[in-house]
């Protein structure tokens, strides 16, 4: 990361997220007066190429609240570097004022009051307006989707992602790569991909039987725009069969394969590409390492780790762009490409404030049509929350505390485990919890909530394993999720230690006793990657719990003590 000052000096032109000054008023009305669509979309068209990047939408057709993480630790060489900077430190690093729209969009600071001021963000009909505005400036702009699109909502689950496919097609992307899409099962993925009017790409998607690149996806595509040959190389999530159930897509193998990425870059350069773009679902730290190993990539459009950064991060000559998640942001990147080189750029992470940016009518109608058959089921109020409900953060979030409480009570367990997913929007205190809200945080194709006995020793082995997937100092050995959330048990974790010695002081909360390695405990969890996992779907378990409790209250989780950061 270069400092803001260096950054401005080092580049031909740069503009960060639009900064509105003088927004000291906490009323929604004032915010709306201060923020206008024209301001948000304002951009002096630059150079001869425009890239538009969206990623990790996770099925969110409608605007949502999405609280950015409070804790997002980096280990090893990335300690303290973006995106491992949060809250006040983030505001300082990027010179943002607390209380402003950009502070609300990019950090957790004062989230609840700012959410009431600035409202929900995203919505694909608003995203469409942003894209249309960019295309009005530059009609041949490339729209690139980083994946995790066909997953994450009630309608997406019920329609096998047809809702997202139909609505995204209206936005006319030029290319896409993948992660959660594969949890639809490989038959369904192939069925959708065969009908896609744009490139489905991943140079690292291999045929598992022959260990050769899969013929179902392209490695890259070369586009001619503004007299420039732009190669876009796809990079799917490398650890699909490890982080998600491999039995759902047994024909495919993944991995990082940076040696093959280098071959692809050399191949497209040989074919005359002036600009090489990697559309990636590696996760930010993996992309940062890949940029240092593979030469000749001009731009990596990062995804997977849900980071939103208002400025690019440079690694050598490669520029990394992080465009957030859930439709909260759209990145516009204008480039001046001449003589086979990137001469300059102008960048803007456009925040999609849903109360400010007008919905595109055509896309809004398409969204309504997809939702109509399910509207009544989705709108049913299961209960209310008097606490802020969110998920993002390395160790816990109140969504998962709520899920763990439900698992412990509904399944009569000692200890509950909830995976460290990074998707799932937030709810504000006082909000009703609808069935749609619950599915936004739990919908998936392997939802069964198991109940089984595990020894204290097994529990530690599992937690150490997951911790290493998050805190291994080499990003190529990380999977990019957050730590598995634990209910009913507290622990200490030293993130700087090697695997096997990070966890200590494991304590059963209900008795206050130390976890006995030899003793068996009843453990309930969900989203097992094992085929044939038995139990009711997690959304049923949590629905029953919320209905029974009525108003949900979740205290701040103080049972995980972190050191070594």
């Amino acid at each position, binding site marked *: 990361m270069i400092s803001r000052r260096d950054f401005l000096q080092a580049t031909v032109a740069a503009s960060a997220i639009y900064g509105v000054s003088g927004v000291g008023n906490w009323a929604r009305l004032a915010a709306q007066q201060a923020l206008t669509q024209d301001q948000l979309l304002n951009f002096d068209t630059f150079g001869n190429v425009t890239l538009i990047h969206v990623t990790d939408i996770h099925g969110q057709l409608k605007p949502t609240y999405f609280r950015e993480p409070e804790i997002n630790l980096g280990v090893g060489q990335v300690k303290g570097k973006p995106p491992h900077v949060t809250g006040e430190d983030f505001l300082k690093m990027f010179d943002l004022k607390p209380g402003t729209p950009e502070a609300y969009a990019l950090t957790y600071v004062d989230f609840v009051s700012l959410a009431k001021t600035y409202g929900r963000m995203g919505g694909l009909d608003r995203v469409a307006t942003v894209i249309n505005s960019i295309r009005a400036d530059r009609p041949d702009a490339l729209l690139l989707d980083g994946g995790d699109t066909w997953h994450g909502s009630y309608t997406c689950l019920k329609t096998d992602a047809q809702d997202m496919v139909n609505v995204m097609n209206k936005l006319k992307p030029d290319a896409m790569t993948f992660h959660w899409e594969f949890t639809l099962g490989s038959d369904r993925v192939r069925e959708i991909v065969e009908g896609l009017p744009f490139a489905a790409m991943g140079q690292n998607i291999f045929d598992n039987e022959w260990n050769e690149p899969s013929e179902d996806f392209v490695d890259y595509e070369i586009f001619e725009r503004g007299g420039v040959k732009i190669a876009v190389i796809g990079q799917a999530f*490398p650890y699909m*069969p490890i*982080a998600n159930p491999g039995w759902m897509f047994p024909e495919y*193998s993944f991995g990082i394969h940076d040696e093959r990425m280098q071959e692809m870059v050399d191949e497209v350069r040989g074919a005359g590409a002036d600009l090489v773009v990697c559309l990636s679902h590696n996760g930010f730290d993996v992309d940062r390492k890949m940029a240092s190993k593979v030469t000749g990539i001009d731009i990596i459009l990062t995804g997977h780790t849900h980071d939103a950064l208002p400025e690019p991060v440079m690694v050598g000559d490669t520029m990394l762009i992080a465009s957030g998640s859930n439709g909260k942001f759209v990145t516009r990147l204008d480039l001046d490409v001449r003589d086979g080189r990137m001469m300059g750029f102008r960048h803007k992470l456009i925040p999609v404030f849903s109360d400010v940016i007008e919905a595109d009518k055509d896309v809004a109608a398409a969204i309504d049509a997809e939702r109509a058959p399910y509207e009544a089921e989705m709108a049913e109020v299961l209960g209310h929350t008097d606490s802020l409900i969110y998920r993002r953060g390395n160790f816990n979030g109140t969504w998962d505390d709520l899920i763990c409480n439900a698992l412990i009570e509904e399944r009569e367990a000692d200890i509950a485990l909830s995976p460290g997913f990074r998707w799932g929007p937030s709810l504000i205190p006082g909000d009703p919890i609808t069935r749609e809200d619950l599915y936004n945080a739990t919908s998936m194709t392997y939802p069964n909530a198991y109940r089984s006995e595990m020894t204290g020793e097994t529990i530690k*082995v599992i937690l150490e394993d997951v911790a*290493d997937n998050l805190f291994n100092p080499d990003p190529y050995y990380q*999977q990019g999720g957050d730590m598995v959330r634990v209910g009913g048990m507290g622990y200490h974790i030293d993130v700087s230690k090697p695997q096997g010695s990070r966890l200590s002081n494991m304590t059963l909360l209900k008795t206050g006793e130390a976890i006995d390695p030899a003793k068996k405990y009843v453990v309930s969890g969900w989203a097992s*990657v094992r085929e044939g996992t038995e139990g009711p779907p997690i959304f049923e378990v949590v629905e029953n719990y919320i209905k029974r409790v009525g108003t949900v209250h979740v205290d701040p989780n103080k049972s995980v003590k972190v050191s070594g950061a």
Partner: protein
Amino acid sequence: MELTRRNALAMGAGAFAATLLPLEAFATPEATQEAIAAFTGGADIGEGGITLTAPEIAENGNTVPISVDAPGAVEIVVMAEKNPDPAVVTFKFGPMSGAQAASTRIRLAGTQDIIAVAKMADGSFVKTSSTVKVTIGGCGG
């Protein structure tokens, strides 16, 4: 995530694994070094001129695809230092071999270093290694 202790341990994730299985079931790094010394006859081993391609994280520890490439080699041995028997495979290349490269799938008892040593036509040796992680997984996203 639904695991019996046996399965979790069989996957070899963490220090608890080693303490519960008979120690002689696993080779030691020393045993691997001895096996390498036997292959080289104790000669010095250089770096470079050999490439080992292996996944950083195994999708399935029971069948991990690896490939080795050492132009000009007459023989390449591959070792997995924490497998019960570290010697995994030996490739021999005759004068008619088009390329001194080979691919196979190997089984790994747990997270460990894979070591490849090549004997070159002039009798010198080179080696390289790569860490392959074998993980329970299941919580990414």
